[in-house]
Structure formats: structure tokens, C-alpha cells
């Protein structure tokens, strides 16, 4: 297996862990954690494809990932603020109970 394939297998595994976490957990913070894991799996893919591309000289992959990390940080801040807002309304952070905005 080449190094690139190893990276991809690793990132897929990470993605699956994140997906299972996001789907199976009822604690909203853990769901957010799962989403972060999936994001990081995507970041690893960026880096891997950049690093093993024929001409990795310009730092495109790294720049993408730095942007994505910055966005993820903002997303985490918003997500946690939402969790706190949800907690104030329903006194717990169970995701399946947060359905009052349904159509």
C-alpha cells in the first residue's frame, strides 16, 4: 500500500468514527465532536492529496486546511453557543428533544 493510500484509509476510518459518533450519540456536544472528526478527516485528505501530488511546491493544500480549521473553530463556537441556548430552553442537551422548530 502506498503512503497516499494509507493516509486515505486512515482518513476514511476517522470519517466513519465521526459519522457513527454524530449519528449514534444523543448528547449534542458529542454530535458536534463527531462532526469535528469528519471535518478533520477531510483535512487529512486535503493534506494527503497535496503532499503526494506531482508538484506539491505551492502551499495550496496547507492553505485550504488552515482555512478549514479556522472555519471549524468558528463553527465550534457557534455550535457550543447553540448548545447553551438549547440547554437554557429544555434543561438538557439531548438532540432528539430539540425539535421544536419543525415545520
Amino acid at each position, binding site marked *: 500500500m502506498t503512503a497516499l493510500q494509507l493516509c486515505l484509509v486512515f482518513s476514511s476510518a476517522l470519517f466513519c468514527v465521526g*459519522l457513527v459518533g454524530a*449519528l449514534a450519540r444523543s448528547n449534542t456536544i458529542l454530535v458536534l465532536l463527531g462532526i469535528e472528526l469528519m471535518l478533520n478527516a477531510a483535512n487529512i485528505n486535503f493534506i494527503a492529496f497535496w503532499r503526494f501530488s506531482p508538484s506539491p511546491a505551492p*502551499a495550496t493544500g496547507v492553505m485550504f486546511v488552515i482555512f478549514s480549521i479556522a472555519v471549524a473553530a468558528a463553527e465550534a463556537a457557534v455550535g457550543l453557543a447553540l448548545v447553551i441556548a438549547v440547554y437554557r430552553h429544555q434543561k438538557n442537551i439531548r438532540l432528539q428533544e430539540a425539535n421544536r422548530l419543525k*415545520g
Partner: protein
Amino acid sequence: MGLSVQNLWLIPLLPLVAAAIGALTPRTGRTLAAGAAILAMSFSFLLSCGALVTALANPATHATSNFAWFDLGMGALRLGWLLDPLTAFMCVMVTFVGTLIFIFSTGYMHEDANAKQFFCFLSLFASAMLGVIVANSLLLLFVSWELVGLASYLLIGFWFHKPEAAGAAKKAFITTRIGDLGLLLGMLWLYDSTGSLLFYDGGHGVLEAGALSALTAHTALGGFALSTIIGLLIFCGAVGKSGQFPLHVWLPDAMEGPTPVSALIHAATMVAAGVFLIARVYPLMSADQALAHVPFHALTVVAFIGAITALMGALIAVAQNDIKRILAFSTVSQLGYMMLAIGVGSWVAAIFHLLTHAFFKALLFLGAGSVIHAAHHEQDIRSLGGLRSHMKVTFATFAIGMMALAGVPFLFSGFWSKEGILHAAHEWDVSRVPLLFGLAAVVLTAFYMTRLVAETFFGKARSHASEHAHESPASMTLPLVVLAVCAIALGFLGTPAFPWLQAKLLGETEVLGHSLLAGSGLMMLSVVLVALGLGTGWAIYGRVTREKSTSPDPLAARFPGVIAFLGARMKFDELYAATVFKLNAATATFADVLDRFVWDGAVRFLARLGEFAGVVNREADEDGLNAGFDAGSESLRGTGKAYSRAQTGDAHGYLRIIAIGFVVLVLIMMLGGNR
């Protein structure tokens, strides 16, 4: 025997492995977690001794081992390890004190159900702290610095079910973050102007002549040299971490954590990291000393902040009643001494005091822990008393620690290191204020420590708990004895007659004892001052001891206003509540109003506008175009209803659909082949 700089990373790695083991063991595996932590620390201690051997062989060199972390654009971000006597002495101190405190914790945390988590956090802390020490890059130092802050947060809030502990953890984290913002800004500015963050890099590091002359040649705002501004920004970080005025408020509250944590993190090591940082970047801090045209030098600020902190901490400690709070404010005061020493230009005196303080303050905190453990978590000295006969080992070792802290002459380490600082302050020609503040704090230190010992160990037991106190187990008294021996012996590494430690830190191979007579006048004065403090303390609190835990404090009866003001910690918390918190709340309210009325108002206005246009349209359309659209709308409504049934509001449902869609897409791509 020696450990080369290339292998220096092993020292922080071992505790990190122990932390990982601790994290992965189940809750019942406390013996495994504790054993791994102690074993890793002991091995780190041996490695540190090896590093010390290497460093002392060539004390004048800064051995480095640098590597590129990652390439980015034009250059690479480089990190590295640094081995010089400063690193080596700090490593030995942290690992040695750390090992003893870990052993003590096995006894102290015996009854706690979460003990394995405790050892995991302690190991994480030790690893991060050692990372701060061995780093040869401000960036690596900063990363470890933040990890240290995280570990401190976790450990202060270890008993998080207590609201005070949870609040104290938050307070510590946020207060130090204010200082860290300055450190981060200083770091970015430094990188921007020198293009490197390595301390030493064969002539290209930021602490070497080339970068320093470039920094001093540059004038930034207000006529300051660039190095002054960057130095002061870095100092902000040290102010936060080392509990200096005005960011000291978190340190006394941090005593909500378990006592071994107070001993390790909030007395011996982490709070000293700020002093270590300033000693490490001392070439940068002192680079502007030669400039005459600047308004003031960076080190002058350091000296004054240190002097204010030293006096303020000692004053507040006089009026506290909680055994750990007294020690906490004493730590604040001693850290002020260290900053003062750096400010007046003697960073070696600061590091000497840092090392001796680490041992005797850890001893005092562990002694306090032993008392608290024996007295069933009674921490108020007014309700203790008479423990001398029940806890002989604890009393003897605590008394040694107390005398080292008070600076009892000639035998105890604290005397020699404090003397070095006062001597340096005496020779400083900018201002007399730091020396006077330092001398005043000497009296106060001797006074409040005498009070603490007299109230806790002498007199008669004033509560049920202290009446039935009994000596702690060997796992707790053994570290006390070892630390007590160190609290005496360590002083002789740096007496004026034979300043071996100072010479090694400065990189001089020849040990030259500067004459004892040079500072003997000052020494006599401080001996008198210590005697004055001890005597007054004993006269007020020792001769006539307290009868009941509720009987009034003799000093508070004499000066009620002053003691109440000091007892309320000079009202710093109230001051911040009235200023910073108010400002923060006002900003939040402003943002809320902006969001709720201005932006929301604009949106509502647009919506109204649209509604109005709709009404006009309807009036126009009602008669003309109606009939044909009605049927169309009806079918749209039906579709909408069907779709709205899919909107269950259940986020998991949405996630599931996304995931299934994803799988279907992947399947299509795989089966469809490449096009």
C-alpha cells in the same frame, strides 16, 4: 551518563505516555495509573540528571537541536530543544518535586473515586511543564504554556461538583488568558520583525546578537525600541501565569483544587513558569538597557510590578484565615520577589530563589495537605491548634519550611536566595522603591508565617477534628522529610561565599566567591528584620494563644478597618466586578440591542415593505389573474405539506438522510466507473 540535547525530548515524553496510560485505563485502574505516573516521573528525573551532567560540562554553551515542523509558503516553521544550565536545573527541580508530590498524592487521594483521572491530569501537567522548559522556540513554549494552563484548569476544577471549584477553574483559565493574549501578540510581532521564533539558532535566533540589535535599532510607537514593546507583551503572559499584580486574583482561588495540585502547580512549578519565561528571554528584555533615549526600560516595569506584588501579597497574607490561602498569597509575594530580581538585572538570583522556593513551598503545601487530611478537611487556622503533639513529623517539617520561607538566617535556603535578591535590588541605581518594598515584605513574611505556625500547631485544639488528628501515613510524611532536607541543603549551592549555582547559570566555569563583606550591612539589616517579624508574630499570636475558634484576632481587634480590608484581599475582586465585568456586560448589552433592534428592525422593515407590496399586488391581482393561479397554488400547497412532513425537527433524522445520500453517491461513483 550525560543526556545529549538530541534526546532531550524524552524528558517530557515519558509523563505524556503515563498520561495516555492513565487516560486509557478504566476507572478501577487507579494503581496502574498512579504507578505509571510515578515511574515516568522518576525516569524523567534520572534523564534530567543526565541532562544536568551534560549541561554542566559546558555551562556557557546553549546546545540546541532544531528541526522544521512544517514548510509554509516562503519559509518553514522551526521548533527545537535547548539544553543549557537553566533548562537542566529547572528539569531536575520539576521532576524531583513532581515525583515527591505524586507519591504524596497516592496517600492524599486515597479515598477519591476519581484518583486515576487525577494522576492522568498530573502527568499531563508534568509533561507540558517540561515542554515549556526544554523548548528552544517561543512557539513550542507557547503551545506547552497553554497545555499547562489547560491542565491547571482541569486540576483546579477536579472537584467540579463544588461550585467554588468550578468557578475558580474558570477564573484561573480566563484571567491567565488575558495575559496570554499579550504573549501571543508579542510572539507574532517578534516573528514578523525577525522571521524566527527560535531562541538560539547558531547566530540567527531571536535571543542572539543579530536579531537583538535589529530589534533595538527599530523605534516603534511612543519612542520605545521595538524590543521594549515586544518584551513587555511577553511579560504580560508572565504576569498572568505567575500571579503578578494586577492579574494575581486567580491564584488564591486556585486553592479550591486538591492540595497536591496546589503544591505542584500553584506553588512549585507552573506559577514559576512566568519567571522562567522572563529569565529565558532575558537577553531580549534587557536589550534596551543600553539605549538612553527611551522613556523607560522594559526591565524597570518588571521590577516595579514585582515589588508591588511582593509587598501586596505579604500584606494580604497577614489577614487571611484559611491555611492554604495564606500560603497562596505568600506564593504571590515570593513570585513578586523573583520578578523584582529579574527587573533589577539579576535573573540568576531569581532562578536561585525559584529553585529554593519550589522546594520549601511544596513542603509547606504538602504539610498543609497533611494537616488538612488529618483534620478532616478543616482548613481554617482559627479552628485548628495544638497539632504539634499529634503530628510530630508534619510539625517538624512544616516548621523547617516556615523558617526557610521566613528567611531565618544562615541555615535555611530561603535566607540565601532572598539575600541574593535584596543584594541585587540594593545595587540597582534606578530607584530605591523595590528594595524598600522587598525589605518590608521580609518583615511581613516572617510575621504571617509565625502566625500560621502558632495558630495551627501551638495552643490547644479548638475543634473536634484537630483534637482527634493523627499523623498521616508514610506515603505522605516521607516526601515531607525529603523536601525538608532539601529546604535546608539547597541554600548552600548559592551562598555568597561559594556561589556555585549562580556561576553555572551564568556560564562561568570558575566559581568566584564575591566577598561576604560586600553585602554584610544589608545582610545584618535583613537578619534584624526577620527577627523583628518573628518576634512580633510570636508576641501577638504565640505567647497568648487563642482560646476558642470564635475568639477575636488580636490584630483585628486593634486595627479592624485595615485587617478587614486586607482580609477582603484589598477588594480586587470587587474592583474588577465594578469595572471589567460591568464593561463586558455593557458591551454584551450593546451587541444585544444592536442585534435585536437595529439589525432585526432593518429586517422587519424590509419584511413590512414586502408585505405592503404584497397587499398592493393582491389588490391588483385579486380580480384579474386569480382563477388560474388558485389551482396551481393548491397543488403547491399539497407538495409543501408533503415536504413539511419530512421536516421532523429531528437532527439525527437529517444526519441519517445525509449519510445515506452520501453512501448512495459513493456507490454511484464506484459502480459508474470513471468518466
